[in-house]
């Protein structure tokens, strides 16, 4: 996405499900913003920005219900898949949220799992290499987001870059699902933009509209 590059990889492992959710697997999304991607970041543990983004991504994926966690179950109460969705930012030029969400959705869409069976006698889960791998049971309601910023209470900017981001008064993120349904909207700061002729208007509607268009453009590219 522009000069922002995010690589996302998914690793599947097997774990015992939580006691209160016996037939559900896990989806663990994380974003890493290494020191490599921008001079802003320092080597070491994840920065505050990375933590906040990871949690937002987690919430977006959970809220959209893109992957029913019950489909990750191998044997209730004994074994379930854990999908570690790890994204690494290679090149950071703002708006990592949209780029990462897109990378994660795309990665989930081409993930396949081997067929696994749980053996109650040995308490082990064995995967078959010969049986064909199955793709994930994704719902069509996958989230696509678009972020907007308002600069100087006047200009609405889509997809802010790293240069623009610190200068914005307001940022609005719209996450849309299938058929233009809103999964989540978060707005920080006032959404009122004053026109050159002094009038004021709320741009939230405008943002939702343009996210819809954006989603229509992106969905065919996901294949």
């Amino acid at each position, binding site marked *: 996405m522009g000069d922002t590059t995010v690589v996302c990889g998914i690793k599947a492992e097997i774990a015992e499900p939580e006691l209160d959710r016996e037939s559900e697997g896990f989806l663990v999304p994380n974003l890493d913003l290494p020191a490599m991607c921008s001079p802003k970041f320092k080597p070491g543990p994840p920065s*505050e920005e990375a*933590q*906040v983004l*990871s*949690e*937002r991504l*987690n*919430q977006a994926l*959970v*809220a959209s*219900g893109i992957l029913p966690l019950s489909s990750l179950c191998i044997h209730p109460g004994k074994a379930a898949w854990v999908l570690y969705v790890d994204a690494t930012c290679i090149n950071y030029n703002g708006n990592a949220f949209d780029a990462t969400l897109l990378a994660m959705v795309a990665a989930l869409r081409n993930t396949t799992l081997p067929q696994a069976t749980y053996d109650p006698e040995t308490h082990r889960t064995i995967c078959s290499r010969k049986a064909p791998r199955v793709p994930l049971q994704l719902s069509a*309601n996958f989230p696509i987001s678009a972020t907007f910023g308002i600069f100087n209470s006047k200009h609405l900017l889509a997809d802010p870059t790293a240069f623009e981001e610190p200068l914005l008064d307001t940022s609005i993120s719209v*996450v849309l*699902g*299938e058929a233009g*349904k*809103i*999964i*989540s*909207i*978060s*707005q*920080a*700061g*006032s*959404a*009122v933009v004053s026109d050159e002729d002094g009038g004021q208007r709320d741009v*939230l*509607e405008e943002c*939702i509209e343009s996210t819809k268009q954006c989603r229509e453009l992106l969905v065919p590219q996901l294949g």
Partner: protein
Amino acid sequence: MTTSTRHDGRKHHELRPITIFYDGLARVDGSARFGFGESTAALASVSGPIEVRLASELPSKATFEVLVRPLANVPATESKLLASMIKATLEPSLILTKNPRTLVQLVVQALSSPSNATWKDTHIAAMANASTLAFLQACSVPMQGVVTAVAIGRLVDGSLIVDPSEDEMSSLQAGGCFVFMFSGSSTGSSVSNIDCVWSSWKSTSGRYSQEELFKAKELAKVGAQAVYEEVRRSLEKRSGATAIPMLVVQEKEAVKEEGTLSSDEKMEI
């Protein structure tokens, strides 16, 4: 708006009874407790302007730091996100440029933990309100308005409710938190400008449209206004004044001696 009653006998646009306490924590500049009903509450404390670490010093304004502590467990990514949310809600109301190269620290302690992992909006609202109250009590950072927050939920039948209780949260289909800033003219008494400064809305069912968002926002505005009135009343009661200080521009004369504000006294775990 329908007038049918909810589980606890409230109307759709009615808030739970609000509790506000200014029970002072001795070692901070301002602190307050805010609760919706009995089950949702948060405690916030403000220290500042105090000395800032060299690394996070800003030359043109004060550094605003928010720490959120959950009721149980260690702070994880979730409380980082909450902290960044609360920071975003309060930042527009604070005039940080008055105290450059200082630190304003806000610590929010959750006094209740959400029973439902998906809907935490009432908790966010309680935290934001408690933070506002703490700032109002501290009077140490100039503000340009009062920020109040309220949560909105949508039930299965499509009706919107204000301030969903713990029981209602399990049956929500969509929900969100809206934060409004009430700022007025400098005369202080009249509120001339109500602006939605922060909102988050999400839905799990997907059957949720744009109009509903705006309806929810309108409803939230009414709710936030009720919270605002309550905040106002509580301040009047406390100070005996007739109007709440809308623009607290006077800075606190002398920041306390630095020694009294060392970090171990600020609600560290």
